[in-house]
């Protein structure tokens, strides 16, 4: 990595430079046995079932079973108008509902040819990045829990709470926002919200070093994550990993920068990269992403154009979708690439087909390959480092 620019890099500098030592020794063999981890288990973050084949403590095979949280969101969306189907996207990824809102709205706008005022676009980016911070904070806490550290969770939630409060001020909701709508956003920013957001960002940057002191620089955390679950560049590409899990392996790709949507093209931000692709680098990538999100939000707050009330273009409840069109939009959600495919069929107010491509599904698929030969404890660390959100897998 280049000269330290971010808090994460500065705090973790020594760690990055240390050589990695990891050896898996297997001199003894015992009979294999299967363990069902989940659907109810403390570290499966919801209802995921992993059937793990173990040789003593060593993982020989991991078979994820999904479908416990399938709610037919894609099918339901076929019977809803463009405005109605947005609220279902909240439930696709409830940890980063704004990002899911944004993805489905972009698809709807593209297929129906709806323009969004610039102010609306900036507000959308602010919300998406704030939600990325909130999502990464939740992941940070959960990752700590997976490694047996309970305290980071509470620290992360202290800050996440403030992001949620900002969202609540804007749209009244704390988890599923339904805020970003076709044509813009549901409501304009309330009075003094920009100042409050700015003071949160300043506060947040003072709290980040605390996380690194507590977790990143902890020697036990380092031996538990460094050199564990290594994904090479080629493997990451072949398995279709995306987001920080891809960039941790050194693949320099971020949809926000390389295929920009909304106003990302006007913004300057850093895309953090790893080199080795181990659990620690994926962790560090996410920690650095929070800082680049802060950068993005600051720029957006500065540039925020237009007057109060110019946040959206009115879109009719029954906005028609022209016939025989299909679109695919890609967005960078906190977990990786979230694309929405929409097909209009014969036209009318409802789309004929809506399909979400979510990052968690592809990232989870790599879990088996990633964790073979490691211990059960490593399996949990690797699983945590992929940042899988179960409803996003099942939809």
């Amino acid at each position, binding site marked *: 990595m280049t000269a330290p620019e971010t808090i994460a890099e500065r705090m973790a500098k020594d760690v990055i430079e240390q050589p990695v030592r990891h050896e898996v*020794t297997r001199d003894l063999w015992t009979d294999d046995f299967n363990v069902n981890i989940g659907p109810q288990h403390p570290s499966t973050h919801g209802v995921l079932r992993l059937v793990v084949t173990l040789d003593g403590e060593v993982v020989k095979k991991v078979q994820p079973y999904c479908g416990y949280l399938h709610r037919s969101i894609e099918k339901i969306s076929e019977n809803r108008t463009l405005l109605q189907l947005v609220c279902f996207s909240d439930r696709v990824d409830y940890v980063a509902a704004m990002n899911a809102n944004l993805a489905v709205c972009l698809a709807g706008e593209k297929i129906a040819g709806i323009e969004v005022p610039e102010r609306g676009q900036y507000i959308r980016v602010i919300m998406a990045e704030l939600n990325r911070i909130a999502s990464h904070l939740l992941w940070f806490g959960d990752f700590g829990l997976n*490694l047996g*550290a309970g305290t980071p969770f509470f620290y992360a939630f202290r800050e996440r709470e403030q992001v949620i409060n900002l969202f609540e001020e804007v749209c009244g909701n704390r988890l599923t926002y339904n805020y970003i709508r076709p044509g813009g956003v549901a409501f304009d920013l309330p009075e003094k919200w920009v100042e409050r957001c700015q003071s949160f960002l300043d506060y947040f940057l003072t709290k980040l070093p605390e996380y690194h002191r*507590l977790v990143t620089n902890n020697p036990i955390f380092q031996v538990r994550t460094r050199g564990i679950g290594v994904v090479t560049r080629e493997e990451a590409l072949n398995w279709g990993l995306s987001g920080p899990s891809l960039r941790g392996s050194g693949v320099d790709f971020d949809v926000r920068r390389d295929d920009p949507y909304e106003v990302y093209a006007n913004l300057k931000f850093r895309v953090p990269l790893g080199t080795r692709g181990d659990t620690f680098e994926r962790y560090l990538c996410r920690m650095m992403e929070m800082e680049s999100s802060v950068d993005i939000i600051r720029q957006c707050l500065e540039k925020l154009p237009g007057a109060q009330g110019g946040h959206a273009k009115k879109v009719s409840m029954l906005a028609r979708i022209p016939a025989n069109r299909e679109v695919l939009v890609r967005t960078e959600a906190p977990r990786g690439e979230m694309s929405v495919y929409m097909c209009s069929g014969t036209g009318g107010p409802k789309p004929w087909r809506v399909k979400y491509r979510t990052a968690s599904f592809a990232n989870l698929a790599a879990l088996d390959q990633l964790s073979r030969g490691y*211990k*059960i404890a*490593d399996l*949990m660390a690797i699983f945590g480092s992929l940042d899988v959100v179960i409803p996003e897998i099942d939809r």
Partner: protein
Amino acid sequence: MDIAALLASEWAQLALYAVAGFVLLNVMLGIVTFLVLMERKVSGWMQVRLGPMEIGPWGILVTVADAIKLMTKQDVVPRHVDRFVFRLAPALIALPPLIAVSLVPFGKNLIFADTSVALLLVLALTSLTSMAILMAGWGSNNKYSLLGGVRSAAQDLSYEVALIFAALGPVMLAGSLSLQDIVKAQGGVWFVFLQPLGFILFLIAGIAELNRTPFDIPEAESEIVAGYHTEYSGMRFALFFMAEYANMFLVSCIVATLFLGGWQGPVLPGVLWFVLKVFAVIFVIMWVRWTFPRFRVDQLMTFGWKVLVPLGLLNILLTGGVMLLV
């Protein structure tokens, strides 16, 4: 038969022991109850929250409420378990710390049983805990429990040796295995200043012996749910829980006795000094728990055999060498 003769008789001695044992048992239960509350409060403060606040003033009655809840719960014995072992394990696990605490010198004259091999007996009793854990893990007939039980056995093998090596330093300095003699030998300087390495080794190995974070591998929640006590609920679970805190108190007592001068100290009465030291050690153990992530099973064994045991041997060598020279 006159009263003096009656008091001096063996029966009177036995009755005295029974009363003392009863008192000690109740004191231990009180301490365990308090430690659970303390753990919750300490973890709360470390995690920017208040901890329990609802039951009783400042939440101090929360463990009482917990105890009532656990005692009134249905006693569930799953159908597929090895019934005898399953039922025996919780009873066995609570015993060793309760026996061992009677060997701890709380004050100059406040000791329930002082033998010349007290330290050896205490260390032997604490290692019985892992036997009960293995029984619980095996008897539960559950894969998580079995993994937890086997992990505990492996862990105890790795750390028992280091624990004993670290305890040998003060024994060599005091020239006795009696805990009371070891305390008396620290009238001038506490052994923590003469044995800093031994103190740290003993504390680390002690935490590992207690199965607490960063060594809580036998009950690693995020990996094997609750490890060896996955299948236990109600009062049987409460016994495991109590044993953990009773063991924590015991290990802290041993640390205070071997290294921190036990009841020795100026001005304040000896018992108070002892309690202060014990709770300081307990606080450190809790502090570590809420700060550190968990080791992996093989890393823990590597740490035990390749770091703690050689350092323990080195400590003995240094102590012996210095004692020869001085």
